[in-house]
C-alpha cells in the first residue's frame, strides 16, 4: 500500500460513504512533467482551440 493511499484511508471515517478510488490510475512522473512542459503545452493549446473552432463550425449553425 502506498503512503498516499494509507494516509487517505486514515482520514476517511469508519462507515463512510466515500467512493473507493484506489483503482483509479495515477499519472506517472512522465505524464506530470508533460502536463507542465511549455513546448508541449503550447502545442496542446493550439490543438484545443482548433478543436473548439471545428465544433463551432460543425454545430453552431444547423440551418438547412
Amino acid at each position, binding site marked *: 500500500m502506498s503512503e*498516499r493511499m494509507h*494516509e*487517505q484511508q486514515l*482520514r*476517511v471515517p469508519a462507515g*463512510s*460513504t*466515500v*467512493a473507493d*478510488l*484506489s*483503482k*483509479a*490510475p*495515477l*499519472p506517472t512522473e512522465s505524464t506530470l512533467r*508533460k*502536463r*507542465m*512542459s*511549455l513546448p*508541449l*503545452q*503550447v502545442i*496542446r*493549446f493550439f490543438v*484545443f*482551440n482548433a*478543436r*473548439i*473552432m*471545428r*465544433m*463551432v463550425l*460543425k*454545430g*453552431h*449553425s*444547423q*440551418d*438547412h
Partner: protein
Amino acid sequence: MADVVVLGAGVSGHTAALHLSRLLPPGNTVTVVSPNSQWNWIPSNIWVGVGKMAKKQVVFPLAPVYRKRGIRFVQAKATAIRPRGDETSERPAVDVEYTAPDKARQTERIRYDYLVNATGPQLRFHATPGLGPDGGHTVSVCTADHAVEAAAALRDTIERLKAGQSQTLVVGMGHGTCTCEGAAFEYVFNVDHELREAGVRDRARLVFLTNEAELGDFGVDGMVFEERGFQTTSELWAGSLFRERDVQAILGAHVSRVEPGVVHYETLDGASHTLDFDFAMLLPPFGGVQLKAFDRDGADITEHLFAPSGFMKVDADYTPKPYDEWRAEDWPKTYQAVGYDNIWAVGIAFAPPHQISRPRKSANGTVIAPSPPRTGMPSGVMGKVAAMSIADRIKHGTSAPNHEASMAAMGAACVASVGEGLRTGSAAAMTMMPVVPDYQRFPTGRDLADTRGEVGLAGHWVKLMLHYLFLYKAKALPGWQLIPE
C-alpha cells in the same frame, strides 16, 4: 417596425440583445429587462470564490454597453407575460417591476412584437433547509457577491488550518437534482490548490459531495474518450484526478438539510448519513424564475407556457418516456415557445425535454440525478439563433424559417482550472460533441474526434483566454461579433 424585448442579460439574453442591435434595421427597437445592473462572466466566479480574482474583474455595468448599442435597458424583473395583450390592447406585453434603486418597486407594462425569454435560473436554495449564504450555513459561487463571501470563508478556514486545527471542507451539490457539477468540480480543485499553496493541505480533509452516481458524469451521462488506441471514460479520467489530488468523493447523494457544521444527505441505497464540515460550498438546484402568464381576459395561462419547473416550454418533445427511448430529436431546435411564434426561450430559461444523465431514484423514491447543464457555449448560440430568427422575420416577413441549434448537434467545452499561474497553472479541459448524446449517430453517443479530456497547463491558458475574450465580446468592443459564442 417592431419592438423586441429580451428578458435577462446573462450569457444568452445579452448575446441575443447584442446580435439584435447588429441585425435589425433602424427604426426597430431592442429593450433588455434585467434585475441586475451588471453583467457577470460566471465561469470566473470560481476564481473570485478562492480569492484569486476580485469581483470587479468578472463584472461590468450593462447600461453603458446598451447605450452604445442603441438598446433600451430597463433594470427590472419581469413578473408576467401577456402574450395576447390585455383588455386595452391586442399587442402582447410583459409586466416588469423595477429593481433600480431610483425606481424600486415601480411597475410598467412593456409592449412587444417579439420576446426572448432568457431569464436564467432561480437559485432555489430554499429547496434544501439550511442551504446557502442567505440565512443558511453554506457558501456559494453562483453570483459574484456569493463568490466574494465564499473566498472570505475559505480564507478563515485556511487561517484555522495554519493555526494547527484540522478542518473538513465540503464542496458539491446541495440537492439531488442540482446541475452544474462541472462548476463544483472546478471549485473543489481550486480549493485544493489554495490549500497546497498555503502549505496546509495535510491538515485538511477535502470532500466532493455530488448527486452524480459516477464521477465524471457532469450531468451529461459521462463521456467516452479515445486515448492511445483505447476507449476510456470520463469516470476513470476524473477518478484519476481525485485520487492524485487526494479529494474524497461521495457519490449519488441528495442533501436533505444543512445544520451548522453538519450536512445531512441520503444516498442512492436509501440510507441517511451526516457529514461534519468546517467549510461548505454547495450549489443550489435551479428552477425557472417565477413568471406568470395571462390571457387577454386575465385568465391564468401559466401552465400553457411553462413547465412545472418554471422553465418555458419550447419546440421539444415533452412526452414522458423511459431512458432507453430518449432520443436526440427530443431536444429543441428553434427554442420557439409552444403556441406562440413570437416568443423564444433560450439558455437556462427553456424547459429541457428530460435529463441527459440516466435518471435515478433512491430506495426511498428520492430523485438523485443531475439536471441537464446549459453551459455558456450552447446558451450563447441559442441567444444568437433566436436573434437571427427574429431579425429574419422582421426583415422578410413572418414566414421566414427559424434558425436552428439543437444541443444534440452542438458541442461544448468545459474548462475546469485546477491551479493558477501562467507557468504553474493547470486545468482539466473537456470538449464534447454533441452535448446531448446521440446513440443513433455515434456508438458512444458522441463524436470521438471532438470528445476529449486532458489535463495540463494549456487548459489554464484556455480558461484565461476565454475569460478575457468573452468579457471583450460582452462589452461589444470592436470586432465583438467575430468572436464565436
